């Protein structure tokens, strides 16, 4: 996903001199390296200075540019939080804050590198939108949209690292900003997710399909503005809805889906699976850390089959 983003941005940058990339000492792998070589005046490495990264992006945007701040999620959002809030949110500037490795993807690096509450934090800022693609197809479409949109304010763009599988299929809905998207449609059970953990949601959907259910798999790639109508429709059209989310229990998709369910007096069963409100002191694969938070395909299936 990271490489897809860089490739798309590099391709668009040839014809769009507004595109600037401001990174904080992160290796320019793949097409990011090509961008740096071909457009050195539009590639800025601030070093380990994330407050300057956001402030410089704000200044670029105030002069009509389309900057992308790019580093690991904890350092693009948490460290320079007040710059994100004031410089980008308050001034409503079209800056994209890329958070690489949102959630607990940096699974051997410990709690300092987990952005497990980033959706709640970014989402609390007025004017801020949030996009979290689930696969390279969504990453491509979202990146194009971020560059080509006519107006709008800052966007927190949460994605993974590398190697995410393509989950989009021939029957999947097209990507549209702010719209819930069905990767596949069923009539009985819906699994709702976003971001990298959608892979686990897809495994849950596959297993429930094998159980004989007609299963929808939907992604809520835009966390803000949330597609309230789309989620309400999903809650109405399925008997059982399962939300799988790599985020703290507060402020993410799961509690907001519950809120919508209450508002519309939804009659479906609603199961939500999120990270714990905890720092887990555990190291291993991404799956190991998710499991330490109680998130695994087996556990989700055990709960929903019970």
């Amino acid at each position: 996903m990271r490489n897809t983003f860089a490739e798309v941005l590099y391709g668009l940058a040839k014809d769009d001199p507004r595109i600037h990339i401001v990174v904080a000492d992160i290796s320019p792998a793949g097409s990011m390296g090509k961008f740096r070589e071909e457009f050195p005046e539009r590639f800025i490495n601030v070093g380990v200075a994330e407050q300057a990264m956001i402030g410089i992006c704000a200044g670029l945007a105030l002069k009509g540019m389309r900057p992308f701040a790019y580093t690991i999620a904890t350092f693009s959002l948490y460290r320079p939080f007040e710059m994100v809030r004031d410089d980008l949110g308050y001034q409503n500037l079209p800056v994209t804050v890329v958070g690489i490795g949102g959630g607990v993807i940096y699974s051997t690096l410990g709690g300092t590198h987990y952005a497990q509450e980033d959706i709640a934090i970014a989402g609390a800022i007025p004017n801020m939108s949030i996009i979290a693609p689930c696969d390279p197809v969504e990453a491509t479409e979202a990146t194009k949209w971020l560059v080509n949109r006519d107006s709008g304010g800052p966007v927190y763009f949460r994605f993974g690292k590398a190697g995410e599988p393509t989950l989009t299929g021939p029957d999947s809905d097209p990507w549209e900003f702010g719209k819930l998207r069905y990767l596949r449609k069923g009539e009985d059970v819906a699994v709702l997710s976003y971001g990298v953990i959608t892979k686990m949601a897809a495994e849950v959907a596959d297993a429930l399909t094998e159980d004989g259910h007609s299963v929808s798999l939907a992604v809520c790639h835009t966390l803000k503005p949330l597609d309230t109508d789309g989620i309400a429709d999903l809650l109405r059209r399925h008997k059982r809805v399962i939300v799988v989310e790599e985020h703290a229990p507060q402020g993410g998709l799961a509690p907001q889906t519950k809120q919508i369910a209450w508002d519309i007096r939804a009659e479906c069963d609603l199961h939500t699976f999120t990270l714990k409100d905890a720092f887990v002191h555990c190291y291993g694969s991404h799956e190991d850390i998710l499991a330490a938070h109680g998130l695994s395909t087996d556990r989700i299936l055990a709960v929903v089959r019970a």
Partner: protein
Amino acid sequence: MTAKPGHNSFDPAESRKRCMGYRKRILDISQNVSALHAAGAFSCMELTDTCYYGLMRPDGQDTFLMSKGHGCMAQYVILEDRGVLDRKHLDAYCTPHGILGAHPDYGNPGIEASTGSLGHGMAMAVGMAVAERNKAGGSPDAGAVYCVLSDGEVQEGSTWEAFMMASTLGLTNLVALIDNNDFQSLGRTSETHPSFYPLDEKLKAFGWETTVVNGHDAEAVYNAVASRNGGKPFCLIGRTTKGKGVSYMENVPIWHYRSPNPEEYKQALAELKEIAS
């Protein structure tokens, strides 16, 4: 390349007259509200006036950024004088039927960035200077950015991140003017944080060209910036007095925020005079 200022005929005598008038206007507005940052505005009055009337070119290609947002009264009265803001805007300062608050708000006429939280302006100025340079495609006529900072916000780590980047990026179209009044909420900086100084040597070590002048001497400010060597970002450290022009406000921390009462207002008006260099 270094952008040259646009007013070869900058007249210090006119600047002195203007600045006295601006101080009076700020005192007048102070009588409508319970608080405004008069002392911080008086401190950077000449620095701000010199930017608008001396350094910035008249066709609008240069940018002024008030990083010390609490000094915005100095900017507002100049923008009013230049017809960018209306009298009604300043008369409605800090009221629900106006548009101007105690810190600059991007989107208001003449306001290029929202500031108020200290330590944000320098990085935004760096980003603006990069954008101007890139838009100009290397032309020496690239828009210049003039950024007025408080000395207090030079204590912010974020300001030093931006200082480091300005010189690293070779931003010759960037001028910082530090309003060095040596005062902050808890006292005199030279007493509370002596290692804050020397400031000019720190900036030089960060790759800037610097000079130190009397920040209330518009002619000295103008000449220092106009005659800079170039090839680096330039920082003018203006030695200033917080509350300059009104004796009881000078170097007295309470006037950071307080408005004078009617009696104090009268005394202030009686005292105001052109500040000689």
